[in-house]
């Protein structure tokens, strides 16, 4: 390996470590939600880390690095859920198998959790990426491989379904541009 290549490898490692230091909690929580299991979530994030590292040179800048990592993480979780072992698990799942919250969850929180988790998956996924993870529509579209228009449609439908629960709801009626 040349000095230049070695230097690039080292700088990639530093960039990825910084990325996971900044975004690791977000990725871990998302993986925990997808996989409903902390051990699996940790495996998924580790797998994500390795994939990002191995494919770092192929990153084409279609999104920011954090969104790319989130896309890799989501696909890793989906791959794990498609595995024969995972499909064989009981399908009636909840968040009960995840660690108990470190701060109190209110009755209102419980109602919100229940309502959001009752949404059809494609609405729930987009809604949580936006309102929980704070990702804008363009980056959600990239992360999920769907059109931006589909993101807006799903967000709108998800909000309509949650309206009875979230009276007074959101101040922003359109997806904001906060980025990831």
């Amino acid at each position: 390996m040349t000095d230049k290549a070695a230097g690039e490898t080292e700088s990639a490692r530093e960039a990825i470590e910084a990325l996971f230091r900044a975004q690791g909690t977000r990725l871990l929580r998302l993986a925990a939600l997808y996989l409903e299991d902390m051990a699996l979530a940790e495996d998924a994030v580790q797998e994500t880390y390795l994939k990002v590292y191995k494919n770092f040179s192929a990153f084409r800048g279609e999104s920011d690095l954090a969104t790319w990592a989130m896309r890799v993480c989501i696909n890793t979780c989906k791959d794990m859920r498609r595995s024969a072992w995972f499909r064989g698990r009981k399908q009636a799942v909840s968040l009960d198998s995840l660690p108990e919250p470190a701060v109190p969850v209110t009755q209102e929180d419980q109602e919100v959790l229940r309502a959001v988790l009752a949404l059809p998956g494609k609405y729930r996924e987009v809604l949580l990426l936006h309102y929980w993870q704070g990702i804008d529509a363009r980056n959600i579209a990239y992360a999920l491989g769907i059109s931006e228009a589909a993101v807006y449609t799903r967000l709108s439908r998800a909000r309509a379904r949650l309206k009875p629960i979230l009276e007074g709801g959101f101040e922003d009626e359109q997806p904001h541009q906060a980025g990831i």
Partner: protein
Amino acid sequence: MNNPIKLAFDRRFSAIEMDETRLEKLSQAASAKTPGARPIKRALVLALSLLLVIGAAYSADLFLGIIDWQGNEIPPETEVMPTWTPNDTAGISAEALESLAYEALGSKPPEELWLARVENSWTSYFPKIRVNDFEQAQKLLREGGSPLMLPDHIPPEYAFNGGELSLYVGTEYHEALTWLGEESPEPGLTLRGYRLPPEAMGDFSGYLLHFVNKNGETLRLEARLSGGGEDFGLWQGDSCQALEIPGFQRALILERSSGRQVFAQQTGFVPISACGRDYFTRGEDTPENYPLEPEILSDVTYTLYATALSGEEMTALAAQFK
């Protein structure tokens, strides 16, 4: 910003943090499994090259999953998030109640539209009409003025083995639905029925027709009205190719280990405003305001599936749809 979702999920997941211990484990795993920034021997270069090739293939697998009409491979949009299951109701789980609901809905006569409620979630099952042969399906579609197409004829070695046409409820018929009442076959499960007006009985949203040859090989024809934006499952080992078939806007053929599928898209008819809800979801619980959502149906997606026909034979079959 008032964002109850963020507050609720942040609090629920508050114990999950990327702490220093986890970061250290990530870094160690990467060091163990990836090449470090150090001089390596020629043999290791070769090994690394091989790893990169394997890694690239594995990476490509990641993005197999869904293919759209343009042939773009995109990550799948499957149900991947956990599904909330309400508490058991009178000893029967909500999951079991949903299963019972689908059974009950499927047993209703074709002229009736039934909705089912489990706790606060609703689903509907749109009426289906069984057909006894291919000619009956052709006749019903023709008489209903349906935009759905069928082939002129089926390859002679295949015999009809069952089929059904499904109906939709046009928004213009909402007012004409007749209230049939409610049933509660189990505590926690409510069924609500409406009779369709006779004029709605020719509005077909799709069909599914099965044929089989003497060797047990299958041919299946399926059509479904949709609002566009269709995509198709793509699995490792599948190959996909775009086709041009007269009469269709777009077409694809997927070669799978289990058989071949030709997908074809028909457009160009007057879009249909219909109501549909085919999964359990939260809805308004008032008798006069049944939870049907209007959607615009502007495309038909056809699926031809065969275990023994060649790609050329399937394309030729699709080309005689009219």
